[in-house]
């Protein structure tokens, strides 16, 4: 089974209340480094077998038509999920990338 990742973010000029809320909460955890936070969506699409260029093309089509709202969002990335990405393996401790 292959997987394709589609990343969608609000356009930079659009207000992101969710990101703002996170931005406001971080200092309360003592995390003061972050000057801005934006929250977007990440979709993982599965296909049978290997990911082909056609799959990617169709994922792009889905990204532009269904997964994002072009009025307020940008599709910022569509790519195959490769196995050395730590996908779905929870990140723990120091060793994690």
């Amino acid at each position, binding site marked *: 089974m292959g997987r394709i990742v589609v990343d969608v973010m*609000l*356009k*930079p*000029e*659009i*207000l*992101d*209340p969710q990101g*703002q*809320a996170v931005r*406001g909460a971080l200092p309360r955890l003592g995390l003061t480094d972050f000057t801005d936070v934006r929250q977007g969506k990440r979709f993982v699409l599965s296909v049978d077998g290997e990911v082909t260029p056609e799959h990617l093309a169709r994922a792009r089509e889905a990204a532009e038509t269904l997964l994002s*709202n072009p*009025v*307020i969002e940008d599709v910022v990335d569509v790519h195959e999920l490769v196995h050395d990405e730590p996908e779905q393996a929870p990140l723990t401790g120091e060793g994690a990338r």
Partner: protein
Amino acid sequence: MSTLDTVAHAGQTPDLDQPWADLGLKEDEYARIREILGRRPTIAELAMYSVMWSEHCSYKSSKVHLRRFGDLPQTTPLGDTLAGIGENAGVIDVGQGWAVTFKVESHNHPSYVEPYQGAATGVGGIVRDIMAMGARPVAVMDPLRFGAIDHPDTARVLPGVVKGIGGYGNSLGLPNVGGEIVFDECYQGNPLVNALCVGTLRHEDLHLAKASGAGNKVVLFGAKTGGDGIGGVSVLASETFDEGGPTKRPAVQVGDPFAEKVLIECCLELYRAGVVEGIQDLGGAGLSCATSELASAGDGGMSVELDRVPLRDSTLRAEEILMSESQERMMAVVAPDQVDAFMAITDRWDVEATVLGEVTGTGRLVITWHGETIVDVPPRSVAHDGPVYDRPMARPQWLDAVQADSSASLPRPGTDELGQVVLDLLASPNLCDKSWVTDQYDRYVLGNTRQAMPADAGLVRIDERTGLGIAVSTDCNGRFGRLDPYAGAQLALSESYRNVATTGALPLAVTDCLNFGSPEDPEVMWQFERAVAGLFDACLELGIPVTGGNVSFYNQTGDVAIHPTPVVGVLGVIEDVAKGVGAGFAHDGQVVLALGRTRDELDGGEWAHALHGHLGGVPPQVDLAAEKALADFFVAAVRAGVLTSSHDVSDGGLAITLAESALRHGVGASLDLTPVCERDGVDLTTALLSESVARAVVTVADEQSLATVVNLAAEHGVPVARVGTTGGSTLKVKGALELEVDAMRLAHTATMRSYFAS
């Protein structure tokens, strides 16, 4: 670095070519600006004038007609209004020291572009209008119009709009207590998203939007300012002097209901603390509007340091900041010695607040940018003395033909077909059960909702101690408006008034949202004038004022305008909300009474529309005297406590009123309409389907109550007929139909789900 277009610079470059046309200004409007200023406007001034003189902000096409509403006596049946047309929202006295403010507004076009955010920010905007009066918002409503139910674009627009209204209103903690959902092809491409908000306040808490008292501080508080809603100004960007070009400006505004909820609580605390001299919300035209209106309504002078405005996007230029329509912002006028107290409260709510400037005695609105003057104008010329057009009007050519094409040409169903007709109507888009929508709205929050959908009117307690309450309804049948805009507006009022009255509340005041096509089309302008005249005359006759409202023009695609859709909201008061009566048969064995007179009036009604796709003829006869008599009867009967239920007759006629009454609690009825037919000279089909005004169905529990009701009806001149008894699992109308309540429910509830539940 770019050159700043200062007032001084404008004086030195009188002949600079300016993009007034691209900003939507007419040549003579631009000339007038030059005349007012005695020089060419700066870019910032041009931006302000263009947006404030737009149709949306200046009401330039509608003003000559709307002025009439100001001629109505500014009194309700309970006394003088506390604030009327011209304020952010009208305020009326509802007794016991309480006042209520309410207003309906449109957010039609933004909701077509981006349904969720458009509708959400529509709710946000009207709520800020209500807050700006010093009131606590207590309820919202949402009159909606969409294209055909089966059109693919309706599948895009409706769920988004509903989610947006719910997403914003629910997050604010405002119960949604009513609205409308109407489908008609004429709204394809031009859906109507109107939003109404009601607020309550003590008389002494009334706040007005004016900046008085030289030396008082002008404070902007709430969200940061971004580039929202300044698409028009991109025109300026290309004309001005920046290198590199600006970053993109958002095409739609995004709402942050959380920020607004905090703003509501923060404002109420500011009012309680007595630290606000004047207050204005920021809506259309943003700071341009707030500064010029506050100054214009007050002492007339204000100075503002625009570079102090907290920004979300540091690339914004001065004129963009002036025009930005970023949401969730307010502007207050605060005495200098109260500023610290003010800031302590905004801090407590984590609301950003910034002193931008102060009230002056100069009579000028002066705005600076890093010390340089970029605006120096008489504020009245921006806010109140915009252009006014008396646009040409023409009675539509097609109207005679349409009025001649009455529904008499349609095959009236025989008595054996009526059962199926009722089922078909119950399932039809405009009459079907709307709980798929209304279940997405919180109707319980605040704990004061006595009645919400599917009631005739929302019924809300405003004082926990005494039970004082209000009833609100919004209505409009745009098809009636198309057949006769004068009558259409009156019928909208008639129905809304009736919906409020059936609860037992005394109707007090009107707000309206006039949704029309292009004012540049003389036929549309004629429709508009007729609708305003109709509403004016009807309010005069009913003795209630119009306290506020909104006009939405340009709802058309190409040459084709929507039906004239003057949505009318009526607000009423009831001394003890616990006595308010709801719709629906609740118990077996109660007497059913039909109130009012039925005429043969099927033109423009749901039967002709839903089952025959026909629209022609003339709408039902307006009978405001009968409407008033019915309302007075209800106030008396509800006060006497003799009604166990009441439901008005409107869309779909008596058949639908009876069916809905049975569906409400699952209690059937056995009825015989012979008394109605004989008295009014109509056949059974007409009795069931006609949409004559001033009618309702009520139930009483016993003979004694019956006698009281009959007496009260006689006293008020309301025709009353005993038509049957509640009970059983079917709705039976002798000689016409017998339908299982369960079968009706199936038909009634399937429609919305089949189109929208995915």
